[in-house]
């Protein structure tokens, strides 16, 4: 049964618990797959065009990747791993470079979510929250769309 079906048959408290439950389960299964598949060869790090912008530059891809996998396990990541995670902008050059079909782009995305504290672990990298993010979008919508468009399109 899908989330919508489950939500329809459960109590308000259960429904609150269900919010994001399938996403969290999916991410957990992806983490398990990545931890199992990755051989820490470091090829993904070597081809990344963003490593030079890291606050903790490194040359040894194997150890940086080991640090990323530690973050995925909920452990403390090395400064080099956290530095790389912080500058990942999803260039995707790592995907064809991986000899083990890990999908390092997904690995880095999940590591970023984890390091930011988004998956229930303590945050290891800081994220500057923009409290005006959605209100700014609403404001631009109000400036650019008619009242009727705002009602029907947003």
């Amino acid at each position, binding site marked *: 049964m*899908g*989330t*919508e079906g489950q939500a329809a048959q459960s109590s308000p408290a259960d429904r609150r618990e269900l*919010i*994001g*439950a*399938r*996403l*969290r*389960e*999916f*991410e957990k299964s992806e983490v398990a797959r990545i931890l199992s598949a990755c051989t820490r060869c470091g090829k993904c790090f070597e081809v990344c*065009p*963003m490593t030079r*912008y890291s606050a903790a530059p490194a040359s040894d891809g194997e150890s940086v990747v080991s640090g990323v996998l530690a973050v995925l396990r909920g452990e403390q990541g090395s400064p080099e791993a956290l530095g790389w995670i912080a*500058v990942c*902008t*999803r*260039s*995707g*050059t790592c*995907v*064809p470079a991986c000899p083990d079909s890990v999908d390092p782009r*997904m690995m880095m*995305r999940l590591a*970023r*979510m984890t390091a*930011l*504290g*988004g*998956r*229930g672990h303590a*945050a290891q990298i800081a*994220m*500057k*929250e923009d409290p*005006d*993010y*959605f*209100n*700014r*979008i*609403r*404001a*631009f*919508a*109000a*400036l*650019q*769309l008619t009242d009727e*468009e705002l009602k*029907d*399109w*947003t």
Partner: protein
Amino acid sequence: MERITFWYGCNVLRHGDIIHSCLDILRALGFDAAPAGGPDHCCGTAKDANQTAAGGMATRTVGRFNAMQRDRVVAWCPSCHIHMLEFMARTNDPRFGMTYFVELLHQHRDKLKPLLTHAVPMRIVVHQHLGFEDRVPVNRVVPELLAMIPGVDVVETPYVAPGFTCASFATLPQALGDIHSNTAAAVQSAGADAVVSIFHQCYRELCGLEAAGVTSAYNYVQLIARSMGLAYEDEYKAWKKAGADAADLIGPERLRKVGIEFYERAILPELRKRPAVRN
């Protein structure tokens, strides 16, 4: 006539002309397009630091699209499109297919070409990123679409920026500065009149380059729209170029809608910001 949902996204609401042009293009191509976007249709990709919130937003948005009972969602925003494919569709129960807007235009290019009747004399380079290409080959397809416009001369450039879109670089000023500088150099070495973005996230940045006097900037849809004779005003770019004086263009009535205090705190700093470009 195929009934589709046109999922334009969130941040493109800065560019009403792009949203309106896309809808006109879709309708000219024979689609019954229902627009949906804004924070109430957010994909949740911005919520990396809170996966419970991201999951809730994804379920809400997929549910809304299911309720629209249209077979296909056509996404404008690359972040929304990929987040749907990678996370939302795999953790919810979508009853619709997904297509990226560029793919749809390219699939219907034979129908689009006769609509491009107005010449747009312009030598351009296309601003490209590495990160989306393996999902949708936009770096190949968008230049092909632009080359169909009478008068447009697309100059190939070897520079492809890292990352997915310029939005990913908001917290990486050195890397973003490199992108700006390399883009300016690519335009100059090509002898181009303008740089053309594929994504609205990049266009927001490139408007800063135009405001700083570095190069003219457009989004590809604006050139297609111009060639079709559509005449939506690019207000965001006008506001960006006006900077501190943007309020004069926006006018008191619209400023009251968003609130003067909010405008000055949350919008004006973005309009005044100029990129750092090294020579």
